[in-house]
């Protein structure tokens, strides 16, 4: 039963054009990062610079996995085929999370290897950072799926995920110390660095918003970051599961 369901969700995901667009955009960051490294010479770790772009791409993948079904009415067919609503949601989330994790890991690894080749660097990469970036991207995609299920609107869901990824961290940076660091290290984009034991390592909130940087570093240890990451996914799935169960499609 579950295997068939997962297969159908996988078929659904790979047979829509938007998935191809999203994955092309994610893969495009590898090329862009390579060009930047080539143009600028010594650069900061490009896989971390482009992590937010990859996260947004995969968040959109998650949003569209549910949002387009509500927009087109396909959700009703899906629910006729799979009346267990939480089951449907779980299968879809599993497929989206697996695809996102694999894509993010591949993009991050490709970026890293390309940059090393172009820059001629021999420093060994921190595998925990790569794994952290992949995990974070998978959770971001699941959060996108959950938000889209609750809001049932593609535009609203994408804007919400963007707020979660970009706006809230920017607001957190303006909080008076020590809360800027504390709240900042609980934000989704910081978790990838903290997972790897580099508190606040991925500080990518734009410089143009102004204000001081994200403190000296995050305060979460790797296990705490992992728990928080799991909590983000759990809350999004629980909210989505409740919304899809309680309302008519």
């Amino acid at each position, binding site marked *: 039963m579950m295997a068939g369901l997962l297969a159908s969700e996988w078929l659904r995901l790979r047979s829509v054009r938007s998935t191809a667009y999203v994955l092309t955009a994610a893969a495009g960051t590898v090329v862009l990062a390579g060009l930047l490294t080539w*143009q600028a010479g010594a650069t900061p770790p490009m896989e971390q*610079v482009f992590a937010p*772009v990859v996260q*947004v*791409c995969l968040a959109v993948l998650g949003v569209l996995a549910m949002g387009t079904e509500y927009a087109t009415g396909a959700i009703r067919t899906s629910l006729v085929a799979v009346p267990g609503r939480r089951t449907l949601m779980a299968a879809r989330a599993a497929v989206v999370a697996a695809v996102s994790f694999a894509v993010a890991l591949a993009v991050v690894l490709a970026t890293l290897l390309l940059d090393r080749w172009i820059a001629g660097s021999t420093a060994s990469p921190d595998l925990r950072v790569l794994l952290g970036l992949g995990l974070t991207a998978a959770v971001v995609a699941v959060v996108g799926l959950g938000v889209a299920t609750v809001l049932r609107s593609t*535009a609203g869901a*994408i804007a919400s995920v963007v707020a979660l990824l*970009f706006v809230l961290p920017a607001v957190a940076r303006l909080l008076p110390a020590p809360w800027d660091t504390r709240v900042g290290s609980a934000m989704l984009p910081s978790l990838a660095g903290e997972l790897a034991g580099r508190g606040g390592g991925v500080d990518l909130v*734009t410089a*143009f918003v102004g204000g001081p940087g994200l403190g000296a570093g995050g305060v979460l240890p790797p296990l705490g970051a992992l728990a928080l990451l799991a909590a983000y996914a759990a809350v999004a799935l629980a909210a989505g599961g409740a919304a899809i169960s309680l309302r008519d499609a």
Partner: protein
Amino acid sequence: MVGLLRSEWLKLRSVRSTWWTLAVAGSGVLIAAALAWWSAGYWDGASAEARRHFVLSPTAPLVGWLAQLCLAVLGVLAITSEHATGTIFGSLAAVPRRWTLLSAKATVVGAVALVAGEAIVLASFLASRAIIGDRPLRYWTAPVSQEVPVLLSWGLSVMVFALVGLGVGAVVRSTAGAIVSLVVVWYVAPIVALHLGAPWDERVSSALLSNLPAELSGAPALSGAGHAALSPAGALAAMAGYLVVALGAAGVALSRRDP
């Protein structure tokens, strides 16, 4: 033309998404007020040493930045929801001249975004200032008249983002695609530009839409444009350039393709 503008205004104000995006943009006022309130409370209880290190960055850029995205979504939806639902057929049957339809839409979206942007940025500043009062916080002691260019610039940039959203929406026709494109313009491009090798990091940064309001307000330190920063007049011209390109592309796309 008056009837056309009235119909576009009716269309815009009768959909829920308009009020949602405006409400989220307006919540920036609350965020700014909360930050000011928290800072004021901290200041009152802090030692002289802690006060010396305390900084509350100007909140107008943050609020304007949030409003830029919200109103850009509004601009996107003004056209992509017509394509998604098919009402674009009705709109073009009523107004067969596509450039006319686009200019009416752009006028209404631009006016709403300009009023909303200026009102939100101004209200957030006045609320924060009222809460902070005469506490000598760094960045919060200049006379209000000195802040006016900053506030006007960020408010104006909200309108530019809304119209660029409308233009991109008309070209891409997909809500998700258009919003993601705007996010790239709004957030990703400035970060990527910062990582270019000198002198291109500053040259490219100076021309990016996200950096124009800081340059327009005469405070380019916030823009990452460094030595290449545009003068206020140059930034204004660049904003106009973005509008011409986005709306021009939208007009061509609307005219050349079937809806």
